[in-house]
């Protein structure tokens, strides 16, 4: 009847979300990639490799959405910056992958820092819509700036990168997959390390009650800006991977659709979990590109069904599911996760403490 017993709760889910074991996911991911890479099917290699840029983008979105608490569609801007930087470097004849990654990360961080300087002053829906504006403006700029982007049809046939001078270019689908996996896992691991421990707690505090955090001396806006810019570096790396795995790009690839998929992937994965976000992205693309392939024209139907099921079966995302499973195995660890509050002031920090 009323909302009460079901009103449970972001709190409980949030509480559950933070109990996941952080290193399980990357390990699992590595194992899955190993299996895919060992399989003889080049289609699998190519398909899997192509999913990783979005996975890295999703990790970046998760950092901003989950940890900084700012739901964003705008990380496609640093993603685009990274991608076009890489593409232009490669087309200009510089084909060193490490250099690409570095340049892309720098370009991404810079872009996100500039955008973030304005955006992190806003919250909730307004932030979301401003980030949407950032996404749209990115795609429009990409389409209009033809000398860089090649127009709406984009760039094709970008040369493959090399790991080191003298090594052969990364051309074979399997090699590309392995390379992209290593980069993705490393980037995610670095992000997890940077957003772990006390920093994670600090951000949780800032999300929970900004006024209190400020009154304890925490530079809220600065923290959020730093996360935003750092996530931008990550998105830039995703952009570099986009070029390395696809070797083409169109403005649409850095537009709203990509941004929306990344954000939804984050929700599926559980906003607080970086590996969850990556898994979510891979799940989304698997459904759209692989599972739906035998049903041409009905990818939206399957994707839509995935979203609907995810909402119902995975409250709190994949990560919360893992946690629930492990709770079932070790019921004692359930201590302190709390149960339906008498629908408390919890979620309503806007009331008076933050005038």
């Amino acid at each position, binding site marked *: 009847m009323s909302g009460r017993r079901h009103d449970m709760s972001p709190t409980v889910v949030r509480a559950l979300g933070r109990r996941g074991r952080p290193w399980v996911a990357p390990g699992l991911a590595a194992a899955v990639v190993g299996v895919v890479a060992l399989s003889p099917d080049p289609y699998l290699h190519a398909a899997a490799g192509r999913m990783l840029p979005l996975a890295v983008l999703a990790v970046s979105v998760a950092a901003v959405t989950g940890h900084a608490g700012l739901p964003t569609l705008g990380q496609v801007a640093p993603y685009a910056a990274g991608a076009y930087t890489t593409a232009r470097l490669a087309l200009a004849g510089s084909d060193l992958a490490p250099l690409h990654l570095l340049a892309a990360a720098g370009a991404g961080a810079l872009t996100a820092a500039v955008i973030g300087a304005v955006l992190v002053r*806003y919250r909730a*829906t307004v932030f979301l819509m401003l980030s949407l504006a950032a996404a749209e*403006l990115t795609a429009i700029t990409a389409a209009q700036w033809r000398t860089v982007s090649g127009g709406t049809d984009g760039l094709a046939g970008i040369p493959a990168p090399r790991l080191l001078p003298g090594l052969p270019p990364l051309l074979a689908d399997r090699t590309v997959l392995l390379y992209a996996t290593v980069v993705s896992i490393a980037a995610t691991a670095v992000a997890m390390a940077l957003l772990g421990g006390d920093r994670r707690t600090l951000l949780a505090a800032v999300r929970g009650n900004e006024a209190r955090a400020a009154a304890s001396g925490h530079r809220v806006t600065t923290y959020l800006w730093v996360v935003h810019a750092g996530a931008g570096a990550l998105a830039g790396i995703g952009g570099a991977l986009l070029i390395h795995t696809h070797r083409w790009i169109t403005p649409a690839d850095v537009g709203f659709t990509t941004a*929306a998929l990344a954000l939804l992937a984050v929700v599926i994965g559980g906003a607080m979990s970086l590996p969850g976000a990556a898994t979510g992205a891979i799940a989304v693309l698997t459904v759209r590109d692989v599972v739906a392939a035998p049903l041409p024209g009905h990818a939206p*139907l399957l994707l839509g069904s995935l979203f*609907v099921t995810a909402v119902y079966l995975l409250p709190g995302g994949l990560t919360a599911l893992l946690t629930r499973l492990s709770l079932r195995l070790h019921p004692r660890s359930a201590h302190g996760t709390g149960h339906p509050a008498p629908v408390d002031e919890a979620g309503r920090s806007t009331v008076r403490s933050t005038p």
Partner: protein
Amino acid sequence: MDAYLIPAVDGVAYGLLLAIAAAGLTVAFGAGGVLNLAHGTLIAAGGYVAAATSAGTWASLALAAGYATLVGAAGGGVLAAATAGLRGRGHLDQALLTFGVALVGADLLTTAYGPDTLRPRLPGALETTVRVAGHRYPVDRLAVLGIAVVVVAAGYVLLHRTRAGRLVRATVDDRAMVAGIGVNPRLVDAVVLVAAGALAGLAGALTTPILGVGPHTADTTLLLSLIIVVCGGLGSVPGALAAALAVGLVQTVGVTSFPTVAPYLLIAAMAVVLLARRTSLPGRASA
């Protein structure tokens, strides 16, 4: 003078057209707090139903509007049922769900009506133009102007001047306290979404004779409606109206006056409005 007056009149008419399209979202998202990404799909559904029903007569037009409203309301009912379990889980989960519903709905619509762009047939009298001061005005847009005024006025009275509207806002603020005064918040949710759906369906019947309806309709309308609702300040009908008119003017006077930057105008204008809105600063009561 003339150079701006004519597009300005266009802009107002087009803005009011958008106001009708955004009305349902204002109710669902602005007032009811449900981030309904299936809004565009409901409009498309209304448009398809109207296209299938209308035959160029006044009677069929009325019937089409009626059917479209019913279909929209039914869609809203589906959403109400689907989101009932998600209360308190935040906008992102709602977004995931409604986006999923939108994708499924779009697929069903193209399966049922085909991928072609359709257009409901208007009675001949509406398809013509009138000449005023040396310029032509499409009669259908002038008609929309009139209807929009009625819809917006009704919306304003309902949301801002009736108990029902206050209950809707209260439910978004703190549903348990609404239950505590003896009103079932789930009933409020359901009514909101059904009403929003009905409005979306009706908007589908009213706007697609002018713009056509096809696979693209859902996305385009959703984006414009979101911009209007958020720029107007969530939950405010006058705000949404002002935003709709602004978008209308940007899309007419703006794009023709500055064609070189036309692609940027709408989004840039939205960003400026949002950046300037103090209420959205941290800690202020915003969404």
